[in-house]
């Protein structure tokens, strides 16, 4: 997939963009503490990816590279912002702590895990998908039955179906062999 982007293939780029935008956005808003800034930060990350595509050979793991790039840009944003704040409001400047390496890696782990879960869930048939989404959110079988207006046994059936579909590996192959999804013809 790195090769695809290197060669200027916009289909590959778009696939990476669609897959990674939500997680990078969430990470950037957490680290920069500003959803407004996060939009710009993520746009810069992808611009750098696109414009620097010819020198991507050093990048081993594209996702890791994008996460680190988002972290760096979020920190740059905080630095330039506190500098500006310091210039404008010398008297009541509050020092905003920069996120630590732990903050970054912890968020990365949480966001990327949930992204992978959602990706798996989104590939399930619609009725199954609704049930599994609510299961992941911690609802009980009875709660889900009430919320979706179906019987508890129907909920259990969809759960079992989801487990089978996921176990059959059909979906997981798509989900977890990331390079395969991204190398689009």
């Amino acid at each position, binding site marked *: 997939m790195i090769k695809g982007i290197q060669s200027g293939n*916009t289909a590959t780029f*778009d696939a990476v963009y*669609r897959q990674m*935008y*939500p*997680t990078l*956005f*969430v990470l950037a*808003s957490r680290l920069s503490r500003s*959803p*407004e800034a996060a*939009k710009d930060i993520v*746009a810069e990350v*992808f*611009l750098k990816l*696109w414009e*620097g595509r010819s*020198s991507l050979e*050093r*990048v*081993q*793991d594209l*996702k*890791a*590279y994008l*996460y*680190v790039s988002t*972290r*760096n840009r979020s920190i740059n944003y905080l630095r330039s912002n506190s500098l500006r704040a310091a210039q404008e409001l010398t008297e009541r400047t509050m020092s905003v702590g920069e996120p630590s390496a*732990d903050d970054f*890696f*912890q968020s*990365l*782990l*949480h*966001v*990327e*895990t*949930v*992204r*992978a*879960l959602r990706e*798996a869930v989104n*590939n399930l048939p619609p009725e199954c*998908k*609704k049930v599994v*989404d609510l299961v*992941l*959110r*911690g*609802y009980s079988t009875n*709660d889900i039955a009430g*919320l*979706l*207006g179906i019987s508890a046994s129907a909920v259990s059936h969809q759960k079992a179906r989801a487990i089978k579909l*996921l*176990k059959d590996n059909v979906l997981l192959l798509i989900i*977890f062999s990331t390079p395969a*999804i991204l190398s*689009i013809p």
Partner: protein
Amino acid sequence: MPGFDETDDQQAAFFVRMSQLIAKEKLGELSDAQREELRQSLAGDERYAAWKAELDQPALIAVVMDELSIAEAHVESSLESFHRLHTAGRPVRRVPGRQISRWWAAAAVLVPIVAIGIWVAERHSGPAVTTGQVTSAIPPGGSRATLTLGNGTRILLDTSASGHLVQKGGIQVQYDQGKIGYSTAKIADSEVTYNTLATAKGGQYQLTLPDGSKVWLNAASSLRYPTAFIGKERHVELTGEAYFEVAQHKDQPFTVGVGTMNVKVLGTEFDVMAYPEEGHKLTTLIQGSVKVQSGGEAKQLSVGQQSVVAAGSPMNIVTDIDVENVVAWKTGFFRFKDIDLQTMMREIARWYDIDVQFERQDLTLKFGGRISRKLNLSELISLLEGNGVGHFKLEGRKLIVLP
């Protein structure tokens, strides 16, 4: 390449790999070899194991899912503008079969609303109204409160405030990151003073009383309590809403006064909601037993029951209450079930510190759903609009519900 750090990259790649194994584990598809890899990789560092354990909390997963679904809603528009600005091209169409429906992305957060379904038809038959542009970012509420001591001193407690103070009789008070706690001490009558913990709109705070009882104070609420419980009774006074986990002291009953209503407890968990604008006082029992007294009436509640006290009508007991809905605020969610738009907007107004004005006339529809209390107001509004709840316009701190 500037900013490129091989070590960071390698470490990030490690966490990407761990994430994918954890997701596989949760989906019930992890080979023995992968299970071993995951175990060994995380065993080296306590922090990593703790971060993984956090992913066992559905509440955390739900919050991240909500954050992601909000971001997903602007993937396509941002990709289009990216191409317009930088490649002079257009986004390549998505591969069939791997589409993440935008509708689903938003609906995931509010599935229950869809499930109730009353409004779904309305959404298509209603007139097309231009969505109000929401530009200013109004953040959600957070851990903020004011502590007023017996001598009138006021201490502002916000998310970052932490400190320690000693009051009359040697009573120690400690506050840190949204929580405040009192030491237990035997002191003389004359040394007891009263403290008041108050939240404004957009604030919430957690308190441990001198007897070890815990209180979660919701927005726009206050609790007045003594610095030591020395009499026959442990008595506190509430306005607004709070959730109580009362420590058991058999010979010293705990009572919560809300105006003329009194809730008497031994050791138990319950929620009292008594915002004046709601027009009634609700006491919901989660565990144990409480007795609600109001006017000349006194009624005992059992678990899952809720008493409704309203001026001019006898006390009403509702059974089979969805307890999760009542205490959702304490776990970081709005959770609505079959409620009207005005009630929903009053709760939102208390959390975002905004005023809500209704230009819409038809308010008969009922809604349900669960939304994170960590969203910005603009994100919340786009979710509500995306799910057809209504159309909104924000003017400063006034939210207008459009016809």
